[in-house]
C-alpha cells in the first residue's frame, strides 16, 4: 500500500454554499477506486489523499490530480481516494463523475 | 467415540447417558442443578441436510417434552457437508432450521450451552457452537474458518505473512485462544470446566454479549462500538 498527498491552488473562486453533502463515487475493487469529496477549511486549496494498493505511480497520480484541480478549481475541497489499482483513464472518469455530483449541489 | 465419553465424564461427574446414531449423539446428564439434555456430533461430523434435520428433530423433542431443560451442545464438526446433493436439497434451509429450533428453545426458557470438545469449523461451528448463550472449548480443541495454507492460496497472501500477522492479531488464524480474544468463547479452563458449565447453566441472561467481550479483551476493537452507535443514533 502507498499513501500519497497533494495540494493544489489556492483557487480564488469560492463557493457560496458552505455545508456541502459529502460525495462518494466508485467502488474499491481490482482496477477500480472510490473517491470521497468533502468541505474543508483549506485556505482556498484542493487537497488530495490517496491510498493505493499499487505503489510506484506517484508521478502519474500527481499529473492526473493536478490536471483535475486546474480544470475544476474546487476551493476548500478535500478529496480522499481509496484505490485498488485503477488505470489513469478510470481515475479520470471517476473524478469527473465526482465533480459532476459535487457541482450539482451548488450550481443551479 | 472415546472423545465423547471423555468430555461427558469430565463435564458431568455426577453421571450421564448417551446414545450415538451415526454422527449424532444425544442423551441426558446429571448436574447439581438437575438434569440437562445432551445433543451434538461425533467423528468430526460434516453437517449436511440429513444430520441437520435429525439434530433439529432432537431439539424439537426436547422443546416439546422437557420444558425448560438446559441443552448442552457437544460440538465436533469439520464444517458443513461439501456436496452437490446437500446444496441441491438446500443445506441453507436445513442449517437455518436447526438454528431456529435452538432459538425457539432459548425463547421457551431452555438455557443453551455449547462445548467444543474436538473440532469446530466454519458453517458447522456456526450452526452448532455459536448459537449458544455461552460457549466453552477444551484447550486442545481445533477451531477455525480455514487452515492457513488454503487461506494463503485463496487470498494470494504469502503464508509467511499470514503466520507473521497471526502473532499479533486474533482476527483470522485458527486457534481456540483467538476465539476467546474475539469474545466467542469463555476463558479456557479445562480443570474447572464442570463447575464453569454449571455456572453457565444457572446464568439467566440471553443477551448476546460477544461483541462487548471482544472489545473488553481487545480482540475486536470496533464491532461493539459500531453496534452501539447504530442502535443509539437519533
Amino acid at each position: 500500500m502507498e499513501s500519497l498527498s497533494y495540494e493544489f491552488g489556492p483557487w480564488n473562486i469560492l463557493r457560496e454554499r458552505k455545508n456541502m453533502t459529502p460525495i462518494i463515487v466508485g467502488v474499491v475493487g481490482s482496477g477500480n477506486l472510490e473517491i470521497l469529496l468533502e468541505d474543508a477549511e483549506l485556505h482556498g486549496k484542493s487537497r488530495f489523499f490517496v491510498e493505493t494498493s499499487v505503489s510506484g505511480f506517484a508521478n502519474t497520480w500527481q499529473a492526473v490530480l493536478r490536471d483535475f484541480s486546474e480544470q475544476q478549481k474546487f476551493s476548500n475541497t478535500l478529496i480522499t481516494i481509496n484505490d485498488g489499482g485503477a488505470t489513469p483513464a478510470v481515475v479520470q472518469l471517476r473524478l469527473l463523475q465526482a465533480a459532476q455530483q459535487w457541482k450539482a449541489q451548488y450550481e443551479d | 467415540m472415546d472423545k465423547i465419553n471423555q468430555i461427558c465424564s469430565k463435564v458431568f461427574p455426577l453421571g450421564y447417558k448417551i446414545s450415538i446414531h451415526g454422527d449424532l449423539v444425544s442423551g441426558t446428564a446429571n448436574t447439581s442443578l438437575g438434569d440437562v439434555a445432551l445433543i451434538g456430533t461425533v467423528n468430526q461430523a460434516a453437517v449436511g441436510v440429513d444430520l441437520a434435520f435429525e439434530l433439529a428433530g432432537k431439539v424439537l423433542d426436547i422443546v416439546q417434552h422437557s420444558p425448560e431443560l438446559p441443552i448442552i451442545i457437544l460440538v465436533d464438526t469439520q464444517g458443513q457437508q461439501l456436496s452437490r446433493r446437500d446444496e441441491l436439497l438446500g443445506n441453507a434451509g436445513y442449517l437455518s432450521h436447526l438454528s431456529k429450533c435452538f432459538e425457539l428453545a432459548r425463547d421457551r426458557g431452555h438455557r443453551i450451552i455449547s462445548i467444543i470438545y474436538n473440532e469446530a469449523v466454519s458453517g458447522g461451528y456456526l450452526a452448532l457452537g455459536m448459537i449458544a448463550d455461552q460457549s466453552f472449548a477444551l484447550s486442545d480443541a481445533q477451531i477455525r474458518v480455514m487452515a492457513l495454507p488454503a487461506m494463503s492460496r485463496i487470498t494470494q497472501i504469502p503464508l509467511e505473512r499470514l503466520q507473521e500477522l497471526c502473532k499479533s492479531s486474533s482476527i483470522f488464524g485458527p486457534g481456540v485462544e483467538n476465539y476467546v480474544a474475539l469474545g466467542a468463547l469463555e476463558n479456557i479452563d479445562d480443570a474447572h470446566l464442570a463447575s464453569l458449565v454449571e455456572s453457565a447453566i444457572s446464568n439467566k441472561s440471553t443477551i448476546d454479549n460477544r461483541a462487548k467481550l471482544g472489545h473488553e479483551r481487545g480482540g475486536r476493537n470496533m464491532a461493539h462500538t459500531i453496534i452501539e452507535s447504530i442502535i443509539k443514533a437519533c
Partner: protein
Amino acid sequence: MRIENTVGIRESTARQRVLAILDADTFQEYLPPSERVFSPHLKSLGMPVSFDDGVIIGEGAIGGQNIYIAAQEPGFMGGAVGEVHGAKLTGLLERAALRKPAAVVLLFDTGGVRLHEANAGLIAISEIQRAMFNARKAGVPLIVVSAGANGVYGGIGIISRCCDYIVITEEGRLSVSGPEVIESQKGVEEFDARDRALVWRTMGGKHRYLINEAQTFVKDQIQDIRNALMQYFNKPIPINLDTVMAEHQHLGERLRKYGKAEDALDIWRDLGIANPVDIPSLDFDAFMTIANQVRENG
C-alpha cells in the same frame, strides 16, 4: 427526482441499488463513508479499504412506508463479511428490533466470511443471526433479496434462511458452499464449478423458487422488486412451536421425496414438470406459469 432505472440490481453498485429501490430523496445513511468507519485489518494485509467497508446501511421509504435497508457491495472483497461490515448489519437489525420499521430489506451479494478477517467474520455472522431473531421477535419482517452476481453464500446463505422472506431473481443464487469450494475439496466429479448450467440448476433462483427455499421469484427490474418487497411489509412470520414444526415437516418431506435425486432435473420431474430440461431457458412468464402450478407451499 426519481431517476428512471432500466438497469436492474445485478449490474448496479450497492449504492445505486439502494437509491433505485427507495422512494426518491428518502435515504438516510447510517455511518456514511464520510465518517470513515472502515476495516482496521486490511492495511497490514496489503489490501485497500473502503470507507463503508463494503456495506451500506440506513433507512428510507418504499411506497411511503419507513423501512431499514442494507446493501452489500459485490465489488469490494466479494461482498464478504469482516468485523466492521458485520457490525453494521448487526447494529441495523438490533436497531430495527427497537424502532420497528415496516421491514428490514437486506440486499445480500456475498461469498460469506471475509477470509482476511475470518474469525471476526464468522462470529459477526452469528451475531447478525441473533440480531435477526431479535428483530423477528419484535415483529419486524426481514426480507432478503438475492439478485447479485456473487450470489448469497456461506454463513450469510444460512442466516438468510432465518429471515421471514427471500426474494430471488433468475440470476440470483442462494446456497452454503460455493461450487469452487466443493470442487477443490471433493473433486470435479462431485461438482464441476465451470458448468454454469449445473451451478444454476443446483443453486440458482428458479430451482430455489421451485423447492421453496425462496418465497418469491421476480424479474430483475426495480419496480418488480419494489412490488415484491411491499407485499411483505408489516407481515412478520412468528417463530413459535407451530411455525417451526410446520417447517420441520416440510423439510422432512423434501428429504423423503427428493433425497435420492441426482440432479435438479429429477426433482423438477418429480414435482410434475413435463419437460424439466426446458426450465432454465423458459422466459419469466412461461416459467412462472409452470412453477405456480407445481410448486409446493411451505
